């Protein structure tokens, strides 16, 4: 049995829960980075026998990007934005964590229903699905622009783990292209956050509500 890989999966889920209750932006950034690193290392541990050179290279690239570059970028965006350093959720933390738990239960049910090829690491499918859900939770219930980027990264982590669960081997070029896209996405979003904080003096996306078809009375002026 891959007890060690299973421990990592449990760790990923605990990180999801931790993300749901963490109030400080910098710890959130660190947690997401940790999750990315752990997810990046997973393929080396889950496979049987010595890993391929390709897998090692890819893991190294992921660990560097997600463990060092992204947190650095996001921390800079956080510092530059001069905003309050906590997350300011729209729902309470207990509600977040209960939603997370509910998502985990739902994803274990879903994982057992999906006609997927048998994964050799237990819980990898529910873990990935609930990670994706946590990402959505971060995007929808947190008001800061940075937490939305973090949510995007968490979704990406979840999808990456899901890919491991399905053993979908993509050609190296495609995987690198995907990683490059994620990198550029974080980069562009970081720039956008910088501009938002300069234009609006905050990075609270709840205030980004001028463009809408619903508030017709105020629209335009």
């Amino acid at each position, binding site marked *: 049995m891959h007890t060690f890989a299973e421990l990592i999966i449990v760790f990923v889920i605990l990180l999801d829960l931790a993300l749901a209750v963490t109030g400080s932006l910098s710890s959130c950034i660190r947690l997401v980075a940790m999750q990315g690193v752990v997810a990046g290392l997973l393929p080396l541990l889950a496979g049987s026998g010595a890993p391929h050179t390709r897998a090692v290279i890819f893991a190294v690239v992921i660990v560097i990007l997600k463990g060092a570059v992204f947190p650095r970028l996001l921390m800079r965006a956080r510092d530059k934005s001069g905003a309050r350093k906590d997350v300011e959720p729209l729902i309470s933390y207990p509600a977040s964590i209960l939603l997370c738990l509910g998502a985990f239960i739902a994803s274990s049910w879903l994982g057992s229903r999906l006609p997927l090829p048998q994964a050799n690491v237990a819980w990898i499918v529910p873990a990935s699905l609930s990670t994706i859900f946590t990402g959505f939770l971060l995007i929808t219930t947190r008001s800061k622009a940075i937490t939305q980027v973090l949510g*995007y990264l968490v979704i990406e982590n979840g999808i990456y783990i899901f890919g491991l669960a399905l053993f979908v081997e993509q050609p190296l070029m495609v995987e690198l292209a995907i990683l*490059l896209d994620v990198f550029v*996405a974080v980069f562009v979003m970081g720039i*956008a956050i910088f501009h938002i904080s300069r234009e609006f003096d905050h990075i609270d996306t709840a205030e980004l509500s001028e463009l809408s*078809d619903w508030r017709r009375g105020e629209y335009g002026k």
Partner: protein
Amino acid sequence: MIIAMLLLPLAAGILAFIIRSDPARRALLLWTACLHFLLTGLLIADSATGGLMLSFLSGALSGPRAAPEAVWFAYDALGLLFIGITSLLFLGAAHYAVRYLALEKRDPGEDADDGSIFNNAPEAVFTGCLLLFLAAMTAVTASRHMGLLWASVEATTLLSAPLIYFHRSKRSLEATWKYLLICSVGIALALMGNLFLGAAGLKAGAGLDLAGLLSNSGVLDKPLLKAAFLFLFVGYGTKMGLSPFHTWLPDAHSEAPAVVSALLSGALLNCAFLGILRVNAVCASAGLADFTGGILILFGLFSILTAALFMLGQRDYKRLLAYSSIEHMGILALGIGLGGGAVFGAILGALSHSLTKAGLFFTSGIVVAAEKTKRISDVRGLWRRAPRTAALWLAGFFLITGMPPSGIFLAKFIILKEAVALKHYWLAGAYLLFLAVLFAGMAGVFISMTFGEHEAKPGEKPFDEPAGMLGPAAVFFACVILAGLFIPGWLNGLLTAAAQNISGKL
């Protein structure tokens, strides 16, 4: 040749960041667009001359030298059609952008709503991103591998975000942020769909390239394929602007500069649609056409309904155009979902919509320049202030709502005919009803804007219509009218072959 088409805008885009002089950069943009169009034209001519037709349809580029599974980039008829649209639009956009940039340089203009003067992004960034955007779209249309297609679509999102933020105002920033986030998350779901697609073909060893998927379509795992379709549909559908995932679209289209709106609406939405079409082809050849068709019809009809509802009482004419794009995307999805002859209609619709909508957005840019506002109620008597623009504006309205003769009329009619022929009477009825509401909603707006007495604002100078900016729109409209009257043989061949591609034939 395809590599050249990819590298040309890529190199030009990087060069645009380096060049210091504005005129040189504008010339670069124009020449790249012309060359790209030339290359595309050569490819289409190549395929139309018949001799090479078969090799195109089998997915390999030039002759039998490349085995299908080894090909990253290659054009089939569908990709060729879409790159043709994109390249043509880009050529028009480049002409328009050159004048537009010169105009913006002299007078950056002010925000139509809060009066703050625009602090435009550097022109180098704009031009560079525009060219790189073209490279990404070329990659989307040429990709033969679903993973690569995904990466290219995400690249288009990232590269077009700075374009939307050209005016550097609060409102454009808001639009950019929504666009970035909603599309990126949507596309992340599409990645999930790619994984399902890979899992569906795991036993058969189909991989993720189209040739492998299509040739193994019989042995793909059906439930996983359905899941893959759903995720890819939601993912690319977000980018394509299908309701209810469309929320970013009106904001981005209304806040971006007119030339960018035209490219987003005319070229980018098609590129996202291509993603859906590719997986639809796989599903269709695996015998899931009923399942995918049902979903496409449902969301297509819902998009038309959403667009119709939001157009009534719309106050911003660029948003109105954006909702009209949602409507047309809905019609395309509907046509593909119905299958049979409607597929041909849908592709013809994609072509005509792209040209018409781009022309309309180009014209709207001139209207904004003339009237300094995007509010419908503030524009009256356009024909007095800018008669040629007003004529184009009205012509665009007739074309986009599907008045004959136009390609859009033909497309809408073919889809309706197919719906009736397939005995979907309720569907046909709802479709007609929504189109009538749409027509009524748009007619009021366009007529009130064009006619009536123009009230001169204090200190208003006479408006000098820039002919160079009117030109592309006029040419596009002429093309659409021509397409409604007569479809040349080579185009017909291309459209038919593309329709076959969509139905899952290699």
